[in-house]
């Protein structure tokens, strides 16, 4: 018979990782929260998924999850993609937690590359998985040098990438992993979330945790911390906009995915946040293609 999560024999490696590892990760998380935006090195473990599939995020979740948590996992905003479903099932199994697709009910939301449209509340934790935690890496290959730059706040180099973008495209064209300044001190890569989501990070009520498994770094944005997206005085930061509204729910202000429907070039734009879109449709909002077969509301058995 399997031991229940809060029985003593499940304590040792509850949520997959052993206790010592989880303590080590929790110490790193506390340090990361104490120094917003600073990349704390940690002893990343082998996980049962390959590097690049979210080992950093999974380790963070495993370190903070408890039997009373309600867990939600999204991939590019959607609850029903393969990666999200697999990771959600993994934690349902190893941590015996309740799972949900409801952004408001979840206590821990693990995310790949999106921040939910619904504003987060105090008490929630948003866990990001990060492939490359160092925003300066593309311009400076030496770790010793980038560490010195962070230590001495020498962030002029990051503007070279923005300059390059304006010179090439006439505007700051980078759309994902847009560099941010946390608490006016540390330069931070927000993981590959679209820059559409950058403004949501500033003064957020929830805790934002970032884990890079392969690069062995944890960093965090504590609640109510300023997060500023870098820009030039004459080229201010701006987010993406779409000419269309969501084809299913008619949302005007959400991040849209383009879905190609056939070989003839038919396409639709739908909310990338599947729960947000489903909620709106349940509340009676209707978009121009609301009767399309993709609109069928499915609840995935956890």
């Amino acid at each position: 018979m399997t031991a229940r999560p809060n029985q003593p024999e499940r304590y040792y490696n509850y949520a997959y990782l052993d206790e010592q590892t989880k303590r080590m990760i929790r110490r790193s998380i506390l340090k990361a929260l104490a120094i917003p935006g600073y990349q704390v090195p940690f002893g990343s473990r082998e996980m049962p998924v390959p590097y690049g599939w979210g080992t950093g995020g999974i380790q963070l979740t495993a370190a903070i999850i408890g039997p009373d948590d309600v867990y939600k996992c999204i991939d590019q905003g959607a609850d029903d993609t393969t990666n999200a479903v697999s990771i959600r099932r993994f934690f349902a199994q190893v941590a015996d937690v309740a799972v949900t697709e409801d952004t408001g009910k979840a206590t821990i939301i693990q995310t790949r590359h999106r921040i939910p449209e619904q504003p987060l509340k105090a008490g929630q934790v948003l866990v990001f998985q990060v492939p490359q935690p160092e925003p300066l890496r593309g311009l400076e290959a030496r770790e010793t040098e980038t560490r010195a730059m962070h230590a001495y706040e020498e962030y002029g180099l990051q503007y070279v990438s923005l300059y390059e973008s304006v010179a090439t495209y006439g505007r700051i064209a980078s759309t994902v992993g847009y560099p941010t300044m946390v608490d006016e001190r540390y330069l931070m890569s927000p993981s590959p979330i679209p820059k559409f989501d950058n403004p949501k990070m500033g003064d957020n009520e929830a805790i934002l945790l970032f884990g890079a498994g392969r690069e062995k770094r944890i960093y965090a944005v504590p609640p109510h911390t300023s997060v500023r997206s870098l820009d030039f005085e004459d080229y201010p930061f701006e987010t993406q906009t779409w000419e269309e509204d969501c084809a299913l729910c008619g949302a005007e202000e959400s991040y849209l995915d383009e879905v190609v429907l056939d070989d003839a070039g038919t396409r639709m734009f739908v909310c990338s946040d599947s729960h947000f879109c489903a909620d709106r449709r349940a509340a009676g909002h209707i978009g121009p293609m609301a009767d399309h077969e993709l609109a069928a509301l499915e609840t995935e058995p956890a």
Partner: protein
Amino acid sequence: MNAMPKAIAIAQAAPLLRVDKLTKSYGHVVGCRDVSFELRRGEVLGVVGESGSGKTTLLNCISGRLPPSSGAVEFDTSRFGLTDIYGLNEPDRRRMQREEWGFVHQNPRDGLRMRVSGGANVAEPLMNLGNRHYGKMRSATIEWLERVELDTRRIDDKPRNFSGGMQQRIQVARNLIHGPRLVFMDEPTGGLDVSVQARLLDLLRELVRDLGLAVIIVTHDMAVARLMADRLIVMKDGFVVETGLTDQVLDDPQHPYSQLLVSSVLQI
């Protein structure tokens, strides 16, 4: 009465850079030993000598990139006055290097970021100094590309698409745009063919005179030394064997090694 000649005024001012008994050894191998000299504003100092004589070691020590084994390097910083640069803490030293110095490498690949455009390379020092206005940096970049006689239409080309001489010009612009007071040059014309070399030297000489820069230029090319330098230091086996005004050293070398060096220049 007060019309003191300019040369005397400069000579009486405090030195811009003072090097005192600088020694650098790599284990048992001596890089340079007991090197002392002073450099004043607007002065161009040439360091000549054969390969392995300690020229580059000396330059790296002076430019704050290689801590010496003993001795001191003092620079007249705008924030702290005349200070031992290795006595400064690291952020202050890096800031001083960023704001007041330039370093032109022999190989432009060492001094440029090859993955970003020539324009961005030239503008980077401005961004490092806190400039956050794209339009202003763009026009400053274009102005500097004109000054180093590059085609401004190629501002957004990557450095690899420029010829060696052009890359070197980009590097020169990048190291002068932020208005440094002291520029280090390590064989700036090495690896270039003679006609390109002559044009670059001409340009460097003009810029240095116009901007009143102090320059320390390391070279093994006597012609470069003759054209650029006011004063020369001749090095051999890590020691300074002779110093003096350029014309004096080249026309009337005293030390046997200097005589050898001067007489080895190929005549056409």
